[in-house]
């Protein structure tokens, strides 16, 4: 049982002794740059070859760093974003989507995140105000400008979400009360409709009446 293990350990050592490993270009450059910075330029010419032992050490360091990065990445992948971070990012409007959703009359009501093998994060927005014709026109113009400036897949998804909200704001038969945006693991939007039969409601608890 020990023989195969020994062979497995010996093979890379023998290979390293026979020929120094070919390092990735980025690592080679980093090692060279570090050497140059450590010694005066006059003493160490830039072209000076590194000993294979130095290279072996740098490979070992690279492997160690890579493995720790991979573990960290795996850990991050399994952890959902912090709900407070998500809420803060939405309030800061770090994506055009958040600004547009707010202008469409929706307010962030809660953020849910879940830890697990497939973590999840979801933001829920509730209808806070009806749109006027001018609000809709302004939003349509913003969407047109957004389309001119960003034709990417995510931007298209954002615009489609907004178009659904805009259509809902004009409908005489229903109202979109709630929109849930799943951010993680895959982007997704869910809309909750309420049939209104054309009646206007004051569901958003108006603060004050018309003048």
């Amino acid at each position, binding site marked *: 049982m020990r023989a195969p293990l020994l062979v497995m350990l010996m093979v890379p050592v023998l290979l390293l002794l026979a020929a120094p490993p070919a390092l990735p270009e980025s690592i080679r450059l980093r090692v060279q740059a570090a050497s140059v910075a450590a010694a005066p330029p006059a003493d160490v010419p830039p072209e000076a070859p590194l000993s294979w032992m130095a290279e072996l050490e740098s490979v070992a360091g690279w492997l160690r760093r890579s493995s720790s990065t991979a573990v960290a990445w795996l850990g991050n992948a399994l952890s959902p974003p912090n709900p407070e971070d998500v809420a803060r990012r939405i309030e800061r409007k770090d994506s055009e989507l958040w600004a547009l959703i707010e202008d469409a009359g929706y307010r962030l009501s809660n953020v849910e995140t879940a830890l697990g093998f497939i973590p999840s994060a979801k933001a829920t927005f509730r209808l806070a105000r009806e749109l006027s014709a001018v609000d809709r026109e*302004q939003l*349509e*113009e913003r969407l047109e400008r957004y389309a001119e400036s960003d034709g990417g897949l995510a931007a298209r998804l954002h615009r489609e979400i907004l178009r659904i909200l805009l259509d809902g704001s004009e409908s005489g038969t229903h109202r979109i009360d709630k929109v849930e945006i799943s951010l993680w693991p895959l982007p997704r939007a869910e809309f909750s409709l309420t049939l209104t039969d054309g009646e206007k409601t004051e569901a958003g608890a108006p603060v004050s009446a018309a003048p």
Partner: protein
Amino acid sequence: MRCRAAFAVALILQSSIAMAADVSEPFSIRKQMHLMAPQAMAELVGASLTHLGTRLTLAPPQVEPAETAAAIVHFCGGLGAEHSDMVAVTRRISRAEFRRCVENGVTDVVEIAIGYDAAVLVTKAEVPPMLLTSEQIFRALARDLPSNNGFVPNVAKTWNDVDRTLPSLDIRVVTTGRGTAARSLLEDKVLQAGCRNLPEIRAIYAADSRVARCVTPRGDGRLVEVATPEAALALLDASPPGAVAVIPQQQAEMTGQRYQRISVDGMLPSGESIRSREYPLSRRLYYYFKVGHMRDRKGYGVASNLRELMDDAVGEAAVGPDGYFTAAGLVPLEEGERTRQRRAAAALVPMER
């Protein structure tokens, strides 16, 4: 006998010719066109009809005044003599409105942008330049202002009361009445934009209440309504420094350097800033035509001369730099856009939303 045969042949020929004439004779259910337009666009529609009337004999068209939303509802109500043939509106038909059109059988609609409408805030030339924002204009003109989660009457007397960076000059804004192009641009693009993001306004659920909060002017004489842009400029001349007039862009151009244009949200009016939609007091204007009401190849249709009106409205004589829309105060579309519209109209390309 021979005579009788010749007569019979002549009779048959005559009736055939008459039948052929009947078939080729164009037929419309209505001789007159039924058009709808808000007050702000009545002059433009009038200019189109006048120009078309110089080439064709038109039955006096029925031009019905209606606000944009109401005009679109009527237009999208269906096909047939009782429905309008064309609407002139101050914004695009929305997706929901167009869906209603399609549900009612109005599937083929040609959308034509006829140019940009713009208004300008001017003040006397000798007054120090004023750079205003939409919010400052709202705070100068609104009847009530948000304060501590409520609303209080607006008591600002000078521009400096509105914002410490503005001069200590009396607030006085002269504009034309509600429904006019300049006034609706002031209300929609400045007052609503200036108040939309204030927390107290955002907290109001009902759209009507929110809009009323934004556009209801103070009643203490700081906002003065006059009948015409010329009257607005005359009153500006007679007013103390600090007075501002809101007039159509064309009117401002006609006065040359006599008045000073005020920058709004950092933008001064120019052909470029208006076309790029960066200048706030501007918007595109549209004509919508029902293809189903135009006469088909056999000459049958709901209304006479509808296609001719559309062709006229996309021609350089209408939308070009020297066209009648430009003469009526519109900023012309870019040349490439005008060509694209002409092609779309010629091919009756239906709008998509």
